[in-house]
C-alpha cells in the first residue's frame, strides 16, 4: 500500500512471475497478437516474422549492427524514464530533453577544435542542455507542486517548437535549408562497422547505463534516490532529503536524454545534422518509455530491451519489402504497443500465471509417464 505505486512491477509483478520472465512473456504475447492481426488482414505472419528476424539479427555485417544502432538512443531515453521512476516520479520529458540536447550538439559546428576534444565538448554540451531543460519540471514540482507528468509533457511541446525554430532559423545550413549545419568530422562519433549506422555512440550509451547501475546500487546517493522512490516517508525518516533526490534524478535523466540527442546527431550518419521536422529524433523519447518498461526499469534490463526494440525497428524495415505481399512497417508498432499494453494492464497480465500454470500442468501430466510422480 505504501510502496511507491509507480514501482510496482519492478520488484514484484502483479502476476507473481519473475519480472524478466514476464517481460519475455509480454514480448511473446505482443508477437502473437501481431500475428493474429496479420492473419486477419490476409498477411502471412510466418513469412513476415521470418523476414523481421532475418532483417534484425540475420548477420554480423549489416543486420545486427543496424539493430544495435537503432537501440542506442533508446537505451538513453529509457534510462531517463527509469532513473526518475526509481526516484518515484513519472518523467515523460525524455523526448523534449533529447531535442534540446540534439540542438545543443549541433552548435559544436561553430567551434573549431581537434578530434577527440571537439567530440567531447559536443557531448558535454548536449548533456548539459538536457539536464538544464529537465530542471524546469523539477523546480516546478518542488516549488509549486506541479505534477511532473503534466509539466514534462508541456515541456516536450515547448522544446519541440523551440527546436523547430532553431533548425529553421538559427542553426540552419545556408546552402541546405531543410537541415541544420553539419557536425564537422572532428566532432563525429567514429563509425564502428562501415556501411552501417553503428557508431561509437554505442559505447557512450553502454557506459552510461553501467554508470547509472553503479550509481543507483553502489553509492549512497543512488541509495537515497531508490529509498525515496520506494517509500518517501521512510526516506524522510532516514534523513534523506526528497528535494535532493528529485533534483538529482531529474538532472541525471536530463543528461541521459541529452546524450540521446548527441547520439542521434553526432553519431548518426549520413547527415550528422538535424533535418527539419526532426525525423531522426521523433518518438525516440516515447519509445524509450516502452523500452524502460520491458527492461523493468533496470539499466541492464534496458540494454536487452533496447536491443529487442532496435531489432524490431531494423527488422521491420526489411519486413515491409519482403515477399509479394509485404507487411507494412506499422505492424511493428502494433507489436510494440501490444507488448506495452500486456505489461501495463494488470488484468491482462493475469493471463501469464495462467499460462505458467497450464505449462506446469502439462509438464506434470507428462511426468507420471516418466514415473516422476509417485
Amino acid at each position, binding site marked *: 500500500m505504501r510502496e511507491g505505486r509507480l514501482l510496482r512491477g519492478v520488484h514484484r509483478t502483479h502476476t507473481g512471475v519473475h519480472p524478466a520472465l514476464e517481460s519475455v512473456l509480454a514480448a511473446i504475447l505482443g508477437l502473437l497478437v501481431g500475428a493474429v492481426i496479420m492473419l486477419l488482414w490476409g498477411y502471412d505472419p510466418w513469412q513476415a516474422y521470418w523476414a523481421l528476424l532475418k532483417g534484425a539479427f540475420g548477420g554480423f555485417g549489416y543486420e545486427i549492427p543496424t539493430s544495435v544502432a537503432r537501440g542506442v538512443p533508446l537505451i538513453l531515453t529509457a534510462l531517463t524514464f527509469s532513473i526518475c521512476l526509481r526516484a518515484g516520479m513519472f518523467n515523460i520529458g525524455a523526448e523534449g530533453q533529447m531535442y534540446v540536447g540534439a540542438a545543443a550538439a549541433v552548435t559544436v559546428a561553430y567551434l573549431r577544435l581537434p578530434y577527440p576534444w571537439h567530440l567531447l565538448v559536443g557531448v558535454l554540451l548536449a548533456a548539459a542542455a538536457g539536464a538544464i531543460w529537465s530542471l524546469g519540471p523539477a523546480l516546478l514540482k518542488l516549488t509549486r507542486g506541479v505534477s511532473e507528468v503534466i509539466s514534462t509533457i508541456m515541456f516536450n511541446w515547448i522544446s519541440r517548437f523551440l527546436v523547430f525554430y532553431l533548425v529553421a532559423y538559427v542553426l540552419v545550413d545556408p546552402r541546405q535549408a531543410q537541415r541544420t549545419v553539419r557536425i564537422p568530422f572532428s566532432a563525429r562519433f567514429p563509425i564502428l562497422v562501415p556501411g552501417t549506422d553503428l557508431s561509437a555512440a554505442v559505447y557512450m550509451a553502454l557506459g552510461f547505463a553501467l554508470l547509472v547501475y553503479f550509481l543507483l546500487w553502489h553509492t549512497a546517493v543512488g541509495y537515497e534516490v531508490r*529509498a525515496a522512490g*520506494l*517509500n518517501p516517508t*521512510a526516506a524522510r525518516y532516514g534523513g534523506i532529503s526528497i528535494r535532493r533526490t528529485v533534483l538529482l534524478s531529474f538532472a541525471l535523466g536530463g543528461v541521459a536524454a541529452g546524450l540521446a540527442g548527441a547520439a542521434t546527431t553526432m553519431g548518426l550518419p549520413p547527415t550528422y545534422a538535424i533535418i527539419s521536422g526532426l525525423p531522426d529524433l521523433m518518438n525516440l523519447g516515447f519509445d524509450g518509455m516502452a523500452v524502460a518498461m520491458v527492461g523493468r526499469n533496470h539499466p541492464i534490463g534496458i540494454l536487452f530491451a533496447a536491443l529487442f526494440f532496435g531489432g524490431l525497428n531494423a527488422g521491420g524495415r526489411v519486413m515491409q519489402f519482403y515477399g509479394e505481399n509485404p507487411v507494412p512497417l506499422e505492424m511493428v508498432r502494433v507489436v510494440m504497443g501490444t507488448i506495452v499494453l500486456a505489461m501495463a494492464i494488470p488484468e491482462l497480465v493475469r493471463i501469464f500465471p495462467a499460462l505458467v500454470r497450464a505449462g506446469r500442468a502439462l509438464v506434470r501430466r507428462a511426468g507420471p509417464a516418466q514415473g516422476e510422480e509417485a
Partner: protein
Amino acid sequence: MISAGARERKRDGYFLRAEGITKVYADGTVAVRDVTLELRPGEIVGLLGENGAGKTTLTKILSGLLPPTRGRVVSPRGPVRFGSPREALDFGIGMVHQHFALVGTFTAVENVALSHERPLAPLALAATRAGLERLMAESGLKVPLDVPVEKLAVGEQQRVEILKVLSREVELLILDEPTSVLTPLEVDELFAFLRRLRGEGKSIVLITHKLREVGAITDRVVVLRKGALVGDVRTADVTKEELAQLMVGRAVGTRAARAVELSTEEIPAHAAHGAAAARGPGVLHVEGLTVPGDTKPVAVHDLSFDVYAGEIFGIAGVEGNGQSELVEALTGLRPALKGTATIHGRNILGLDPRQIYRLGVAHIPEDRWRLGLVLPFTLAENAILGVHRWPQFRGPFSVLRWGKIHAHVRSLIERFEIQATGPGAPARSLSGGNQQKLIVGRELAKDPAIVIASQPTRGLDVGAAQYIRDILVEMRDRGRAILLVSADLDEVLALSDRVAIMYEGRFMGVARPEELSRERIGMLMGGVRG
C-alpha cells in the same frame, strides 16, 4: 464458562479444517510444516509461537488468501480459496491483519464501506456510518470516522482494522496480533465483545504474544514452533510455563531460558530506584511545545519536560492522544507551532532528521511499514537507513561499502536473532516481529545519546521483547537517555524511572511508577484527574 455445555454440543461440527498444510515460500523458507487443525464454532483458539514461527502465514492460509504448497483447507460450506479479502468476507471469514489492510487516503467509514460493497456499487456511507457508530459503542473501540486513516496513529489504525472486520457478519474471525498497540482497558473491552461473538457461535482465532491474554480469553491454544504444530491443548489444562516451554522448545539456550523464566508475564521492574539522585545531566529539554496534528489543529498542548541521562522517561496513554505528534516533532518529521526543544542545549526544532540524528538521536518509529522500513529493500539496505552516510558504510565518491554493510547486518541478525535467509532477503519477507527486531537493532546499534522509542517491542515475542527491554535498561545504566512511548502499560511501568500519562496532548501527571496504582493510571489515561 456458563455456555461450556452449549459449546460442548457444537463440538462435533467444525467450521474449517486444515489438513496437512505446508507452506514453502518462493525463496525456499518453510514457514508452515504439515499442520492439521480444526476450527469449531463457539470457540476461541489462541495461536502462539515465537516471531517467525509461521502464525501469520498459517492464518492467511486458513482464511484462503494464501494458497498452501501442500495440504488443503476444507469447510462444510465449500472450498476455501479466495482471490481477495472481500471474497473471504462473503464466505464468512474475516481477518484482522498484523499489518493493516487499509486504504490510507480513505476515512474509517470509507474503508469499512469498501469491504462491504461490490466494487462498482455506490458506497452506502450513511448506513455504514450508523453501523460503525453502533459497533464502536458495543466494542469499546473508538476511532475518528472522518479522517483519512493514514493520518491516524498506529493504535487508531489498529482499531479501524478491527472494526472493519467486526462490522461484517463473519463465522470465522481471525485476529493477527490485534492487541499489540491497544491499552489494557481497550483489550478488556475488545475481549468482552469477542466473548459475545463466541456466545453467538462464531469461531475465533487470536494471535498474541501476551500469555496473559491467552489465559484470559481462549478455550484452546495451538502452539507453532518453526512452522510445526507442537501443541493443541485446552487452555484450562496448561500453565503459562508449559506454553512458554512449548513455544521455545526444550532445547536450552539463553533466550529460551529467559522466555520460560518470564512466562509468569511479570515484567521485572527495572527502574533505578532513587533515580533522582543517580540520574545525570539533562539531555532532552522540552518547554512549552505545541504541535499541530493531522486530525486536529493542535495535538500537543504546551508540553514541558526533561529527559536526563541515565533515565528512562515513559509516556503512557491511549494511542492517538498526541504521542505520535510529539515524537515526530522531536525527530524532525513534523514542524512545531510553539515552544522549544533542545538536545544537549542545542535547538532541534526546525532541523531535518539527519541533523537531529547527528546530535546522537536514535528513533524507533511506531509504524514500521510507513516509517521504519523500505519493504522492497533488502535487509542490508534497510539496516543502513539513516546511517548510510556514516564513513564506515560510505567510502570515497559516495560508494557504498557493501562488504562492511553486510558484516554489520550479519552482526545484527546474530545479535537480535533475526530470522531471515540472509542480508539479501527483502525486508518484506520477514515476519512482523523480525521486521521490528531489524529496526530496533539498527537504531540501538547507533549507540545514541538518546533513544526515542515508540512501541519498541510491538509484535515481539516474549523472549525478544525482554531482550530489547534489557538492552534499553543497559543503555540507561550506561548513561543514555531514553524516551519510551508505549501503549503497553506493563512495559512502561516496569522500565521507566518516571512516567507521564498523556491525554489529549497534555500530561495528566508525571510520577515514579511505584507511586501510581493501576486504577489511578487508568483514570488518568481516560482524562480523569480524580
